[in-house]
Every structure is written in C-alpha cells, then in structure tokens.
C-alpha cells in the first residue's frame, strides 16, 4: 500500500495556536499507514509547494494528506501550486483544521486537538481505501443540430456558423421565421414582422455551413454530449446525422381559448393571432375593438405571465385607432406588463394615441353581451368602482403562449425535464440555456415565453454555450462537471453483483444509469459523460454493486469507524 505523508500547516499560528500540532504529530506518527508527519509554518506561500514536492520525492510518499485550511480557503492555491510542481493532486487530500476546527473551537483547545486528530484520521482512512475512476476521453463532433428556425433558432444557427461550426437547421415549416411569419408588424418598432429576421435569413442562405431542412422533423436522437446520433424525417426521406451538440428552439404555441368569453360560439370573438391574419389579409373592419388581457393566463392552471400579450395588444390597439377610420380601441387588463424603458414608452405612446385602458379584477372578469354576435362588454372598472358598458363589434382575446405538445417527444428522447407547464426546464438558474443533458441547449419560447428580441438574444447565448463545448474537440468525462472544478469521479456498476433491479435508473437525476441486457439478465451500466457523481445510485443499490470509486462504501465505512476513536 502506498505510504501516506502527512503535512500539517500552522498557518502562522491560526491553526497551531488552538490545535496542539505537536500532540497530533505524535499520535499520527504511531499510525502504521503513515510514513512521515511534518509541520510547516505555511503551505500556500512561495516555495512551499517545492518543499512539499521535495519531501514527497525524498520519502517516496504515494499519497499526501494536508492538515490545513478548508477547501474553500487557500486549498485551491495550494493544489494549483502542487500541480505546477508536478505532483498528482488526485492523490492529495486535505483535512480542514482551520475554518472547521481551530476557528470554531477557539475556546476549547483540547477538544479542538481531539477533533483535528479525528478529522485527519478520517482522511487517512479515505486515502487508504479510495480508488480511481478511470477517466475516458470523448471526441466531440464539431457539428450542431438546431431544432426550430424561429428567431431563437435562426440566431443560434447563424451564431454557430459565424464561429465556424457546421449547423443543421431543422424546421417543420417550409421557411424559417416561426411565429413571426404571422405578424405583419412587430412591436416595438412597428417594422413588418419577418423583416426583423431578414438579415439572419440572408446570412443563413449565404453561409455554406448552415444547411436548412424545411418541412422536416426529428425522428430520433440517441447518444450523449459530443456524439448525438440524429435521424431526420423530411420530404426527401430520412437523413441521419451525428452532431456534438443539440440546440432546441422548438418554440411555443398560442392557447386557443375554447369556451372563454364566448370564443368558438360567439361571432367576432377572436384571438390575437386571428387578428394578425386579418391585418395580413388587409381587412380589419370594426367600429370598436375590445382587447381582453390574460385570457387563460395568470390563473390557477397557468399562473405565469406570457410576456408578449401586453405589448401585442398595445400594438394592435394602436393599429385599430390609426388604420381603421373612426374606430376606437379598449384594452381591458389586470395589469399592463411593459418592463423596460422601450416598452414603457410604447405604453405611453398608446395612451397618447387614444387607446383606452380599463383595469378589471380577476374575480370579476368582463361579461360578453350579444347573441351569436358580440354586441358589447360589461366590465367592473376597479379603479373608479363603477361598472362600464362598452359597445363593441370585435372582441380580441390575448391568450398566453403554451408549450408545444410536439416538442414533448423530443424532450423525452433527450431525457430532459419540462416544468409543470410543459416548457423545457433549464438545469439551474445560473445556467439558463443549459439542460440536464450535457450538450443540449435551449433558447426562445421553448423554455419560457419571450419576445422575439429576447429570443434572438437567447439564441446567441445558446450558440456561445454550444460553441464553447464543441470547440473543445475532445473532453475528459471527469471534466464534464456541473460544479466548479472536475467531478469527484463517476459511478461504476459491478456487473457481477448487479441484479438489474433498476433502483439506480429510477433515482439518477441525469439519466446516466441504463439497464443493459447481458446474456440472460439485465445489468446497470453508467454513461460516464452524463454521471455527475452525486452518489444517489450508490445510496439506493441494495447490494453495493454501484460505487463511486473515490468515495466507495469502504471509504465511508472506514471514515465512520475512525470518526470518534479519539473520544473514547
């Protein structure tokens, strides 16, 4: 067994003034696993790493235990310096004698010394029993698949191509543009909707690195980060691709408010998208248009704000006032949501143009009057406390964006979770365009309702994140970490003792454990790239077949047995 060398840091008295390092040196020196115990004034100062390295070489020490500060203190500096000296830092462990001991037990030096000896003993137990996860290198294919060619997808595809990565851009429609294709004017600039995307569409056709697949769907995706095997189904049959990363920009759909405010039964009750189509056809005829906000949103079923409906209503109400002679426009709302200086100015503009706003209460929604054909709306104005009757011949419902049921098949194949409304979930709030599955990125309304401008920005973000992964060329599995620094290791299933019960498959938060046929039985296998070493699988394995070598059951058992040896 490799000899362990223990180096205790005094930290210029920060540790030694409380913990009696001399006592600890004596106790540890009698441990048969320990070869040498030395005391140093510091470990993180210039020259310290070289001295440690010299000691390691001189004594032929295989594993090093440092008694020093916490991993969040100066330990990172120490490890970097040791690595620079050529020491294999995977065999270096540190016991926290400063933040976790001397500094919290300053009034009990004797107790602190016992505790320091215990914590060092536990680390010795760990060093004696720890094994090494054999790391593997994966080759990352320098190509990306972008699903959805709306604002987000186009922006992501162009971003990636600009950085030199071949992109396969897939859309179920014949042409790129997404929901923007429907709108004839887009807020807040009032430019024609698709015009916003013209530079990107031009770039897409000009750049040979982007290959556009129209009227195409993703039939299947297999594999993992760096090497996804994709099958596409389009008008020209199936295509198979192998890509390193997948960007999902599958977008969302607008809710059809069946039964809400007489929609579907009463004539001239329409949604915003139907109004956009009327504008596109060039014929909106009405004397008075009433817009009802939050139709089917911000309720118990869909408690979220859909972001785009308020500015959309402002835009269309202004169009009614300006483009339809003699017509007036009312917006019935619960709150007008126009965040930022640009949209707030847009709201002021609508007020100046003569759009009238009435605030209603969610508990007393507007009542639609009219038999078969809408004739008016009755609404309780909460600001003035009176019920108002508005004559109208066109009722427009602002319905929220809802998750596209078609993207559910894709998220299932990629094993990424959706939130309770069906939108694709980001992995962590600080990683907003990344998903639970490495190499899969999200942007646009597939992840949450956003405006086209925000979708363009998110597409860029996803492109940058995907590029930083694709550009690596190769990656070690241990580097595919969700936490700062490399992973602890990865789980390994012992095929001889695994009974194929599937507990690990059920509990793994990353879809890394898979059951695989082996002769007559099933055994668990771990996809090393996906595993993040949380240890959940090891905790639920009924017969210890699943282990993380760095912290296997022998390590934990030995640490537990040594924890209170000093106190007995």
């Amino acid at each position, binding site marked *: 067994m490799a000899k362990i060398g223990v180096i205790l840091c005094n930290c210029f008295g920060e540790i030694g003034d409380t913990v009696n390092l001399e006592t600890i040196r004596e106790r540890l020196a009698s441990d048969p696993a320990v070869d040498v115990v030395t005391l140093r004034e510091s470990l993180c100062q210039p020259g310290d790493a070289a001295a440690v390295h010299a000691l390691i070489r001189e004594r032929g020490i295989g594993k090093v235990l440092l008694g020093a500060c916490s991993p969040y203190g100066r330990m990172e500096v120490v490890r970097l310096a040791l690595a620079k000296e050529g020491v294999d830092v995977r065999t270096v462990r540190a016991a926290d004698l400063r933040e976790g001991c001397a500094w919290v037990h300053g009034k009990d030096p004797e107790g602190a010394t016992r505790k320091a000896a215990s914590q060092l003993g536990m680390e010795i137990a760990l060093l004696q029993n720890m094994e090494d996860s054999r790391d593997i290198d994966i080759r990352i294919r320098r190509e990306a698949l972008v699903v959805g060619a709306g604002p987000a997808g186009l922006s992501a595809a162009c971003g990636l191509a600009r950085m030199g990565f071949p992109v396969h851009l897939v859309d179920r429609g014949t042409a790129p543009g997404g929901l923007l294709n429907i709108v004839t004017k887009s807020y807040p600039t009032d430019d024609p909707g698709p015009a916003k995307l013209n530079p990107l569409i031009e770039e897409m056709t000009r750049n040979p690195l982007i290959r556009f697949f129209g009227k195409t769907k993703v039939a299947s995706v297999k594999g993992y980060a760096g090497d996804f095997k994709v099958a596409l189904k389009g008008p020209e049959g199936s295509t198979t691709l192998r890509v390193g990363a997948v960007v999902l920009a599958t977008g969302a759909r607008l809710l059809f408010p069946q039964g809400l405010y007489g929609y579907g039964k009463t004539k001239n009750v329409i949604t915003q998208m139907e109004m956009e189509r009327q504008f596109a056809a060039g014929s909106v005829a009405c004397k008075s248009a009433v817009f009802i906000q939050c139709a089917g949103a911000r309720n118990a079923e869909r408690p979220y704000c859909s972001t785009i409906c308020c500015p959309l209503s402002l835009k269309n109400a202004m169009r009614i006032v300006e483009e339809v002679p003699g017509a007036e426009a009312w917006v019935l709302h619960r709150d007008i949501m126009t965040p930022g200086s640009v949209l707030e100015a847009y709201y002021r503009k609508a007020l100046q143009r003569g759009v009238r706003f009435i605030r209603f209460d969610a508990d007393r929604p507007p009542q639609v009057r009219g038999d078969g054909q809408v004739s008016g709306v009755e609404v309780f104005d909460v600001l003035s406390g009176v019920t108002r009757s508005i004559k109208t011949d066109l009722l427009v419902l602002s319905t929220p964006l809802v998750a596209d049921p078609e993207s559910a098949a894709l998220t299932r194949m990629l094993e990424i979770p959706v939130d309770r409304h069906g939108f694709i979930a980001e992995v962590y709030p600080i990683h907003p365009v990344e998903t639970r599955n490495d190499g899969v990125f999200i942007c646009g309304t597939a992840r949450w309702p956003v405006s086209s401008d925000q979708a363009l920005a998110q597409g860029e973000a996803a492109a940058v994140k995907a590029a930083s992964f694709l550009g690596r060329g190769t990656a070690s599995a241990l580097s595919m970490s969700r936490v700062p620094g490399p992973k602890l290791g990865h789980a390994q299933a012992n095929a001889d003792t695994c009974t194929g019960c599937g507990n690990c498959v059920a509990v793994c938060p990353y879809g890394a454990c898979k059951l695989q046929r082996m002769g007559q039985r099933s055994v668990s296998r771990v996809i090393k790239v996906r595993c993040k070493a*949380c240890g959940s699988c*090891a*905790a639920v394995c009924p017969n210890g077949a699943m282990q993380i070598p760095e912290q296997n059951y022998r390590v934990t058992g030995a640490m537990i047995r040594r924890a209170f040896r000093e106190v007995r």
Partner: protein
Amino acid sequence: MSSSAAGTNILVFACRWCGLIGADAAGRRRTELPVSFRVIPVECAGYVEPDAVIRAFASGAAGVAVLGCHVGGCRFNDANHPALKRLELLRTLLDATGIGGDRLLLGFGTAHEYHQWADTIRAFHKHVAGLPSMASWLPAAAMTGER
C-alpha cells in the same frame, strides 16, 4: 475521555455545495461551536445511504446529521429530494429499533447560511446531550469501533 463527551458525538454528512460552504463561512466568522461533531464531506446528501447512518450509530455516534441543500435548490437536480424520503423512512426504523428517530437530523441550508449551520449544530448538540447515553445498551464491541 469522559463518557459525557462521548454521549454527544455527532457525525455530520455535509453536502460540499451547501452545508459545507456554510460551515466554512461560520469558521471565517469565528463562530464558536461545540467540539462534539465530526464532518464527512459528501458530494450530495443523496449519497448518504441509510446503512451509513446505522453504521455511524454502531461506531459511537449519539447523533447523525445529514445537511444538504434546500429541497429544490440541489446542485444535482433534486437528488437530495429522494434522499430526504429515504432518510425519513429510516427515521421510523430508528424509532422501531429503540435508537430513536430524533437522533437523526435532516437539515437544509444554502451556502451563505452560516448562521443556519451554527444554529443547527448548537441545537442538535443540545438535543443529543439531553438524550440517554447510547453506551449503556450498545454492545461493547461497537463502542470500540470493531466490527
């Protein structure tokens, strides 16, 4: 060592991304804590198997604390959530065996909640100190750490 100190032995399994960073912050503020606890850093509270908790009691711990991230704030996609359920189930077994479910503490905090860490350790130390000694009924072999 006196039996009264051994009676408050607490083994803490602390998640490296929440609990342990809180412990580190408590250290930097020189928050005085009882010396009765020992820490085993784990990647995630999800790593702590019920067996390890029982082994800790068999090795002389009078209390075991598993301190992870808040439910919903786990570094490993809610891996701590099934762990919480597992350990709550274990608590009923501890009650049934006579060890007592209140010797197991499940705590949740975030990295900046050093005060939460300190309060948890102090309160649990006080609680465990008030419980009858484990030494009186555990086999002698267990108290010397042999298996």
